[in-house]
C-alpha cells in the first residue's frame, strides 16, 4: 500500500498491552519527569538542593538566587517546551496519520523562526535595545500565528481540506521560511549571526520569569486542548469519512489540532529557539512502551517530552562548563540517529 504509514519491521503483530499497563507506564513516566525536574534544578555550575529551600535552611542567598531566578525558570521552560513539542508532535502524527510527521512539518516552526530572526536582524535599527528580549519572542509568536492563520484561511477556502494538501502547503511554507531565514542570515552582521545561530539551534539559557511565564501559559492551554481531543484523534485513524460517520466533527477537530499545535510549538520556539526531534522521537518511544491509543500517547508524550528535554538541557549546560552547548545540538545528536534507525526499520506495507 502506498499510504505513508509504515510498520516497524519485526514489530509484534499482537498487542499484549492492556489499559492497566498503559496506566502503569503513565505513572512511571510522570514520576520520572518529576524526579528529572528536581535533579535538574539542583545540578549545575552551582549545586543547589531544592529540599534545602523547602526546609527553610537556605541561609545562603546566592544559592537561593541561583535556584529561584536562574535554574528554576530555565528548567521549567525546558519542561514545558519539551512537553509542548512532544504533544504537538504526537497530535500532528495522528492528524496526518503519518508516523514521521513533526511539528516543523506544517511550517509553524519556520514561521516562528522567520519572525524571530527578522527581529534580531532589523529590530536594533528601530527599537530600543532594552526591549529586544520581549520583541524577539513577540515577533516569533507573530510569525507562528501568521503561518497558522494562513493555514486556517487556506483550509476554509478549500471546503474539503485533505491531509495531503495540508502537508504540501506545509512543505511550501517551510521552503518560504528557509528563503526568509537565508536572506536574514545574509543580511546580519557578525554579532547578530552569533545570536542567530545559537537561537536557531535552541537554548533555554534566556529563560527568565518574564519570558517563561507567558509561554508556559500558552503551552498549558494548547496542550490541554490537544489532550481533550485525544479520543477523537483515535477515531480519525479510521479515516476522515469513518470518523465523520462515528459522529466526529472532522473539520472542527482538524482546525483545533492545527491551531493548538501551532500555538504550543510557536510559544516554545519563541523563547527557546528551534529544538528538533523531540516531537518525532518522544511519541514513538511512548508508543513502543504501551500502544497507539492517543489518550495514552499524548499524556505519555507530555511527561517523557518534558523529562527528555530537561535532561538534554542539563547535558547542554553542564558538559562543557563553564561554557554551554546549544540544546538543539544535544537533541539532534540523540534524535538524528534515532530517526535514521526509524527510517531503516520501517517498511511500507
Amino acid at each position, binding site marked *: *500500500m502506498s*499510504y*505513508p*504509514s509504515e*510498520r516497524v519491521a519485526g*514489530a*509484534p*503483530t*499482537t*498487542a*499484549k*498491552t492492556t489499559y492497566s499497563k498503559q496506566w502503569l507506564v503513565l505513572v512511571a513516566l510522570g514520576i520520572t519527569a518529576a524526579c528529572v525536574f528536581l535533579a535538574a534544578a539542583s545540578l549545575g555550575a552551582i549545586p543547589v538542593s531544592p529540599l534545602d529551600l523547602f526546609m527553610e535552611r537556605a541561609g545562603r542567598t546566592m544559592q537561593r538566587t541561583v535556584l529561584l531566578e536562574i535554574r528554576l525558570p530555565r528548567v521549567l521552560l525546558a519542561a514545558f517546551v519539551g512537553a509542548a513539542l512532544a504533544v504537538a508532535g504526537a497530535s500532528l502524527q*495522528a492528524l496526518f*496519520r*503519518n*508516523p514521521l510527521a513533526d511539528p516543523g512539518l506544517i511550517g509553524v516552526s519556520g514561521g516562528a523562526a522567520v519572525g524571530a530572526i527578522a527581529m534580531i536582524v532589523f529590530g536594533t535599527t528601530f527599537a530600543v535595545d532594552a526591549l529586544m528580549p520581549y520583541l524577539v519572542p513577540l515577533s516569533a509568536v507573530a510569525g507562528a500565528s501568521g503561518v497558522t492563520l494562513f493555514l486556517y484561511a487556506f483550509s476554509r477556502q478549500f471546503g474539503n481540506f485533505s491531509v495531503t494538501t495540508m502537508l504540501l502547503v506545509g512543505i511550501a511554507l517551510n521552503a518560504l521560511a528557509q528563503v526568509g531565514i537565508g536572506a536574514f542570515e545574509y543580511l546580519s552582521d557578525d554579532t547578530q549571526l552569533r545570536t542567530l545561530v545559537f537561537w536557531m539551534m535552541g537554548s533555554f539559557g534566556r529563560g527568565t520569569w518574564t519570558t517563561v511565564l507567558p509561554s508556559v501559559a500558552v503551552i498549558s492551554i494548547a496542550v490541554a486542548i490537544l489532550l481533550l481531543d485525544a*479520543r477523537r484523534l*483515535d*477515531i480519525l*485513524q*479510521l*479515516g476522515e*469519512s*469513518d470518523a*465523520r*460517520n*462515528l*459522529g*466526529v*466533527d472532522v473539520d472542527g477537530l482538524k482546525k483545533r489540532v492545527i491551531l493548538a499545535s501551532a500555538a504550543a510549538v510557536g510559544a516554545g520556539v519563541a523563547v527557546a529557539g528551534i529544538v528538533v526531534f523531540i516531537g518525532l522521537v518522544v511519541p514513538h518511544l511512548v*508508543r513502543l512502551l504501551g*500502544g*497507539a*491509543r492517543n489518550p495514552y500517547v499524548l499524556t505519555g508524550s507530555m511527561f517523557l517530552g518534558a523529562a527528555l528535554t530537561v535532561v538534554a538541557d542539563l547535558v547542554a549546560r553542564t558538559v562543557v562548563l563553564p561554557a554551554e552547548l546549544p540544546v538543539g545540538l544535544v537533541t539532534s545528536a540523540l534524535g538524528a540517529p534515532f530517526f535514521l534507525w526509524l527510517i531503516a526499520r520501517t517498511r511500507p*506495507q
Partner: protein
Amino acid sequence: MTLAAHNVSLTINGTDIVSEVDLAIEPSTVTALVGPNGAGKTSLLRMLTGEAQPSNGFVSLDDWPLKEFGLQEQARRRSVMTQHNHVAFDFSVADILELAWEPYRHKAPLPRDIEQHICQQCDIAHLRARIFNTLSGGERQRVQFARALLQLRGPNDGDDNRYLILDEPTSSLDVAHELDLLRMTRNAAQSGIGVCIVLHDLNLAARFCDRIVLLEQGHVIADGPPAECLTSERLSSLYKTAIQVEWHAQLDRMVIHS
C-alpha cells in the same frame, strides 16, 4: 419513517455523478444498490450518510432533513461501513471495536457481552489482540463490519429507526464469510434495521436482498424485488455483456450466469 433521498443529484466539476434519484431505505428491509463501476453507487451512499451534500434535492432521516441532525445523533441512528480499510498506527482489533461506542460514550459503558457476541458472529473473536494493520484484507473487513454492527447496539432513546449502510462489504471475503456476512445482514434487517448495501455479486444480491435498485450513469433504471428487477435483457444491456438469469429448481432460487 425511512432514510430517504428525495430527487437528489450530485454534480462534480460539471459532471453529473448522480441524477434525480429518489430512494427510500425502509426499516426491516435489505436494499441493494447494483450497477456497473462508475454508476454512482458510492456517491449515492455518501449523500445518504450526509458526507456529500446533494447539488439538488435533499436527504431525510425519519421524515426530518438529515442536515438538521447533529453528527452524534446521526451516528446513533445509522452506521456506515466504507471501503476504507487502513489505520496508520498499531491499533489492536479491540481498540478499533471500542471506537464504535464513541456516540454512546457519555450514556453507557460498552456492553462486553454484546461485543463478544458480535465478535463470535463475525468470526473475529480470536483476532481481538491482533494489530489491525497486520490482518488480511478479509479479516479487516470482518472487523469493520463488526464495528458497524456494534455502533447500532447502543441505548436507544425512544423507538428511533436505525440504518446500516454497507459499501461493498464482501469485496475481500471468501465464500463462507461472504455468506455469513449476508446472513448477519439479514438478521439485522429482521431486528428492524434498515439496510442499504452496495453489491457487485448479482447472485448474492438476488438471494439476500428484498429490493434491488439498478443504477446506470447516475440514474435509477429499475427498482423492485430481485425477481422483477434482475432480468436477462436488462442486465445484459446494463453491463454490455451477455448475462443469463434462470430459476434453479434444485436450489429453489434465481441463478445469474455471465
